[in-house]
């Protein structure tokens, strides 16, 4: 059974979707991701969908759900690398992905996440790091 790997990178979780998502895969990703956020106490989730060329309303909703779920578990979600065609489709479907941040590419997405997390708890982390 296929699964989308979730990578941990410091306080963040990285998900790169390389294949077209079918419904079962998407729901699995949703539950896996929420479990991972809980287990690792991640503060941010970065989802790269640059390889995704087809979306439907279900996929759009899953992305929105992941954002909302992470939010109430105190993690920010950034979706990066959306294709123009995908963006247009989502807008035509009336899905604006509220509660999810977006960035052009992974680099900018990481910056955005650091900015979001950094503003809430920068000092204690920085101190810990210097002690280590």
């Amino acid at each position, binding site marked *: 059974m296929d699964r989308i790997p979730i990578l941990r990178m410091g306080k963040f979780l990285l998900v790169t979707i390389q294949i077209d998502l079918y419904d079962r895969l998407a729901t699995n990703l949703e539950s896996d991701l929420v479990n991972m956020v809980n287990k690792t106490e991640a503060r941010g989730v970065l989802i790269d969908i640059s390889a995704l060329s087809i979306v439907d309303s279900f996929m759009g909703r899953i992305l929105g759900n992941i954002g909302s779920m992470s939010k109430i578990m105190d993690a920010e979600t950034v979706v990066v690398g959306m294709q123009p065609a995908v963006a247009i489709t989502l807008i035509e479907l009336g899905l*604006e*992905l509220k509660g999810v941040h977006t960035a052009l590419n992974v680099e900018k997405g990481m910056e955005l996440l650091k900015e979001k997390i950094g503003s809430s708890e920068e000092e204690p982390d920085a101190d810990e790091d210097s002690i280590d």
Partner: protein
Amino acid sequence: MKTDITKMLQKKRKQILEDWMTNQLEDEGLREDLMSNEELREQSNELLDALLKALTAENVADAQSEDFEMVHEILSGISISRARQGFSPRETGIFVFSLKDALLKNLQSDLKDDPAALVDAIIQINKLMDNLGVVTFETFIKGREEVILRQTDEITEISTPVIRVWDGILALPIIGTLDSARTQVVMENLLQEIVASGSTIAILDISGVPAVDSLVAQHLIKTVAATRLMGAECIISGIRPEIAQTVVHLGIDLSTIVTKASLASALKYAFTMLKLEVKKVQNKAAL
């Protein structure tokens, strides 16, 4: 009897051409500025030649006959080229109908003594020439429509340029009415350019949009939302006072979108977002 007409006309070809030319040159609507008399004579000669050649005793009563294909072709060519040159429909019409006058005049003088045959001949020639007139108009309008279509294509092509005004800032001036089809083009161009250039801010300038109604506003909101999904911020600039009035009167909510009065202030805002600063250089000589 019928052979008489066609033979007669063929024999008097020269006279008909002269009469036709006189008719055309006498007309007030003659456009010497668009076409010289020599050129006009050449066109007339060519058409008359083809017509008289195609004309036989059998087909003179049948305007739809295939024998006239050549005539139709020549006429279509003339008519389309006239449409492109800017002749009015009236001027194009007179070209054909003055030929009818010339033909009838010659028939009249030849068949003076036989009124019955004259009426017969006139009816036939009338039918034939009316048909040619219809062909002329059909192709004339087709030519005009082609011109219009080409212009429409040109307008859609030139009207949606995406400009890189700064590293990371795109500007898209929209000129003309925004309908669904154009919004689609604008949106696709913008999103593709955002990906290609890696820009984080897009400025939509609508100072060239004549009117904003709820539909246009809907299109704008969609475009802004799509840019946001891509991970870029979208600013709408060029909100003229009239546009602001209509938007508020229609109850359109633009509060979720960053709007600026001019492109300059939008650019300023974009600089602030990118933490850029524009400074005036101190002139050393003055110090």
